[in-house]
């Protein structure tokens, strides 16, 4: 853990509100994106991601400094995702969930995806369609494969960070990730046919 992170954790343990805001600014997008890609529904993802930070503040005193703060946050986020997915499954809500997304959110999806790269409407639409295609394929993976795909290929974390988050051995992460990637490739091939 870096010195800056150590200081931030110290301030968090002192219940410093500015430190809390800084933590959300630093890791909010990462946590939200992980949760959104796991759950697939924007409103649910926002709720779960907020809950992650509330949990962090409730249990910051239990955080041990040998782990990275971001890794700890993402571990909490992945546990919250698992619980919410189970809860949503009991409510028989569609696991993909993008169909329930508000139109406004659908519209900004393409913008978020291609910020600074594309300004033509047709290209924007194409980018939004590509994202939807990718998201649907990710959502169709089983939960464990989805988590590994999101951590490694979306969030671009190292294998060491992934083993810290999931508690799996590196070899297990690699073999499961490979199976997840192959399944994703096959899903995309089927959906684009």
């Amino acid at each position, binding site marked *: 853990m870096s010195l800056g992170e150590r200081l931030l954790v110290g301030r968090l343990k*002192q*219940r*410093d*509100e500015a430190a*809390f*805001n800084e933590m*959300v*600014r630093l890791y*909010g*997008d990462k*946590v*939200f*994106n992980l949760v*959104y*890609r796991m759950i697939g529904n*924007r409103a649910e993802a*926002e709720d779960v*991601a*907020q809950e992650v*930070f*509330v949990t962090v*503040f409730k249990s910051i005193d239990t955080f041990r400094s040998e782990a990275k703060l971001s890794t700890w946050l993402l571990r909490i986020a992945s546990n919250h995702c698992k619980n919410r997915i189970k809860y949503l499954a009991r409510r028989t809500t569609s696991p993909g969930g993008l169909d329930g997304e508000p139109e406004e959110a659908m519209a900004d*999806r393409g913008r*978020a*995806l*291609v910020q600074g790269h594309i300004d033509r409407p047709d290209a924007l639409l194409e980018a939004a369609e*590509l*994202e939807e295609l*990718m*998201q649907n*394929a*990710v959502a169709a993976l089983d939960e464990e494969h989805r988590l590994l*795909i999101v951590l490694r*290929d*979306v969030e*671009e974390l190292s294998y060491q960070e992934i083993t810290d988050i999931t508690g799996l051995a590196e070899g297990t992460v*690699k073999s499961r*990730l*490979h199976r997840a*990637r*192959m399944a*994703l*490739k096959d899903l*995309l*091939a089927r959906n684009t046919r």
Partner: protein
Amino acid sequence: MLVLSFTRAMDHKQAADLFSDYLDGEIAPGSKADLETHLSACIQCRTELESFRRAVGSLGRLKRNAPPAFLTGIQKQIHARSRGRFFARRWMLFGRIPFEWVSLTMIVAMLLYYVIVLQGAPTTVNPAP
């Protein structure tokens, strides 16, 4: 003939099993050479690898920022759940001292008062008339 013997040495499944390590740059040099030899002779695996690379490569674009009101939402939740006391400095406000501690202090104070003032006071015995 030499190429054919190499392609036989590694089948499609064995080649596909190495795709992730190959893409991550974590493949052993010997396996990399075997895979590349197989790929040079096998159009099916080359196509598979290209689809695999495209699928994995596109995932990096699935980035979505948290909504603008995200931080405000969390702050509201924490303030509501802690009744506004969560971020207060410890011991600065009376309200942050747990009720049990206040009760214990009161009990100890009363005991001390009893022992020191009431028990310690000289007892006066009225002389018999």
